[in-house]
């Protein structure tokens, strides 16, 4: 029964196993299903074990039960604009009424329909999607019931399929929030016995009692605590500006993760030179040399940056983008020194790995293992930080 659905799910990367499939079959033979809606929820409850895969499931379900659907793509920016309730508040009253007369899905459907019909870029029309026109959709348009798309842009790239896929935001490969980052960082731990002796050591206690001929003597040991120390070095400003929110989230997750023995963080701009900075405005400096000579090498080093710069900024003396920085040592030398000092290090790059072909990204990627700043990338990075060397 529905065996193809099983393979459709697997094709869509829902990690479903035969055990679960048999459970579903068991449920079906018990006769609990009267319609497709119930099947949808039943199968989801049994087969899908994380909200991160709800969206994959939705896609597979649609594909199997409705035939393949390829909806027109609506950029994330548009979606964001429509969803942001604040934008609704800046519409005039007349616009608001019209806006509210269509619900979100209707608007999207209409938009999708027109995107499909339209095959070329379009300006100043009355129906098509374009710029400066009077169609309900478009950039700087003035059609009263329309959606003014664009204006202040907050999202970056990421073209996504606009469809009724509510769990899209739970996908592991798309979004990151503070909590998710915290969870990923949680696995960054190495337990060792430190602190005061507050745990009963049963084996030693038994030995001691046996030696004392039955006289009870309690033996204590140190309890296991996380011994991981983290050094976070973050690129700020310039080309990292679009990722400020993401980096901010990473930082606040790391900062509020209480399970590290120690967390130290410094900022740099573009590349690391003679100095690192203690604040984001890069006022309070600490010399990189001093840091390296005082910090133990067992700190897990996490570098965050796009690693994109002019080759001279990386390779040359006085190459720093900030003229007054006057670095005597080229950035590449500093980076190599840092890599030599620490035993475990990773570089997190917020850019999509498809854009890592840039020359300096390549060079830096050879020094530090580079991972994308997504949940999956972060998990992999954490894994490589805890392997024994």
């Amino acid at each position, binding site marked *: 029964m529905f065996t193809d659905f099983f393979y459709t799910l697997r094709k869509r990367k829902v*990690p479903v*196993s035969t055990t679960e499939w048999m*459970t579903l079959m*068991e449920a079906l033979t*018990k006769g*609990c299903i009267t319609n497709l809606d119930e099947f949808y929820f*039943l199968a989801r409850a049994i087969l899908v074990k*994380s*909200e991160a895969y709800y969206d994959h499931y939705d896609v597979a379900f649609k594909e199997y039960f409705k035939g393949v659907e390829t909806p027109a793509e609506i950029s994330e920016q548009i979606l964001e604009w429509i969803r942001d309730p*604040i934008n609704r508040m800046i519409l005039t009253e007349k616009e608001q009424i019209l806006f509210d007369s269509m619900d979100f899905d209707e608007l999207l459907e209409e938009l999708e329909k027109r995107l499909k019909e339209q095959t070329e870029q379009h300006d100043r029309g009355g129906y098509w999607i374009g710029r400066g026109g009077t169609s309900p959709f478009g950039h700087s348009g003035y059609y009263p019931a329309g959606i003014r798309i664009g204006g202040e842009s907050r999202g970056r790239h990421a073209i996504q399929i606009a469809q009724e896929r509510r769990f899209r935001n739970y996908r592991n490969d798309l979004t990151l929030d503070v909590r998710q980052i915290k969870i990923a960082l949680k696995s960054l731990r190495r337990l060792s016995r430190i602190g005061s002796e507050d745990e009963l050591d049963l084996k030693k206690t038994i030995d001691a009692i046996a030696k004392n001929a039955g006289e009870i003597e309690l033996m204590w040991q140190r309890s296991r605590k996380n011994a991981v120390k983290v050094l976070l070095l973050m690129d700020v400003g310039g080309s990292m500006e679009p990722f400020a929110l993401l980096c901010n989230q990473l930082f606040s997750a790391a900062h509020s993760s209480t399970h590290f023995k120690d967390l130290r963080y410094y900022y740099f701009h573009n590349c690391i030179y003679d100095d690192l900075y203690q604040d984001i405005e890069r006022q309070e400096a600490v010399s990189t040399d001093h840091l390296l000579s005082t910090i133990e090498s067992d700190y897990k080093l996490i570098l965050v940056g796009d690693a994109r710069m002019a080759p001279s900024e990386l390779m040359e003396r006085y190459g720093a983008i900030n003229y007054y920085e006057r670095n005597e040592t080229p950035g590449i030398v500093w980076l190599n020194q840092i890599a030599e000092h620490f035993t475990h290090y990773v570089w997190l790059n917020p850019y999509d790995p498809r854009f890592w072909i840039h020359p300096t990204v390549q060079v830096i990627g050879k020094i530090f293992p580079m991972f994308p700043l997504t949940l999956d990338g972060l998990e992999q990075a954490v894994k490589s930080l805890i392997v024994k060397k």
Partner: protein
Amino acid sequence: MKSDGFDQFKGSSDYVTSEPLRNAVNVAIALGRPLLIRGEPGTGKTLLAHSISSGLGKKLIVWNIKSTTKAQEGLYVYDTVQRLNDSRFGDRDVSDIKQYIKLGKLGQAFASLEQVVLLIDEVDKADIEFPNDLLNELDEMSFHIPETNETITAIHRPISVITSNAEKELPDAFLRRCIFHYIEFPDPELMEEIVQVHFPNIKNSLLREALKTFYSLREIDEFRKKPSTSELIDWIRALIVGGIPHENISKEIPFVGTLLKKETDYDYFVNSHMTRIGSTFITRRQ
């Protein structure tokens, strides 16, 4: 026509459920598998077990998991220290090991003469291996006590509800045996019902305005902590006590401090959004 077993749980008067959740509960009951519940904080994961218990009229056994909890503790604890102590002072007959075996929560659920609802709360708080250690017991619904050579077998399979905050990944082998449901944040209609459970006499106009504003706030992704149900309930209570006319709610957002608990969120909101709307924002924090 549904066969029996699939429509047992219908919710209870003090807990509003969505249909998918009810379905998941009933599937779990019918198949005798543990139900794993996940969801944002404040969506009522723990309350679900209470609701099942009261809805079906079954006793509830709660096993709260902490970071130090071991799987063994849920089955039974062999109080060796007590026995050792007794052996020295001769209070009790130490050859009777049975009296030193104390059943844990899971053990109690198995040994119960009638079917119970077992809540394993916040399973992800414990060590990563914890769920795996319980696999066999939850599968077979029995465990062996070597000390007394006894096997405790569940007289009735307990209805097990396991909640998780997704702090740690749960092992795949464990997941395969569970029925899973993710409690979504309630949509406005469901939220209306939930609020009405708390404030049966709330004015419709106030409720609608409050919800509208609340959901607008939740859509702002920059917040570190989005307001959740419990914050909404507090806020509405404040609005009612403060006697705020409903037409002012979305414009002024009074008592916004009850909704936004983090200072950064509060500042962010005041700076970026209140000015954008361009209304006169009056700070009315308590």
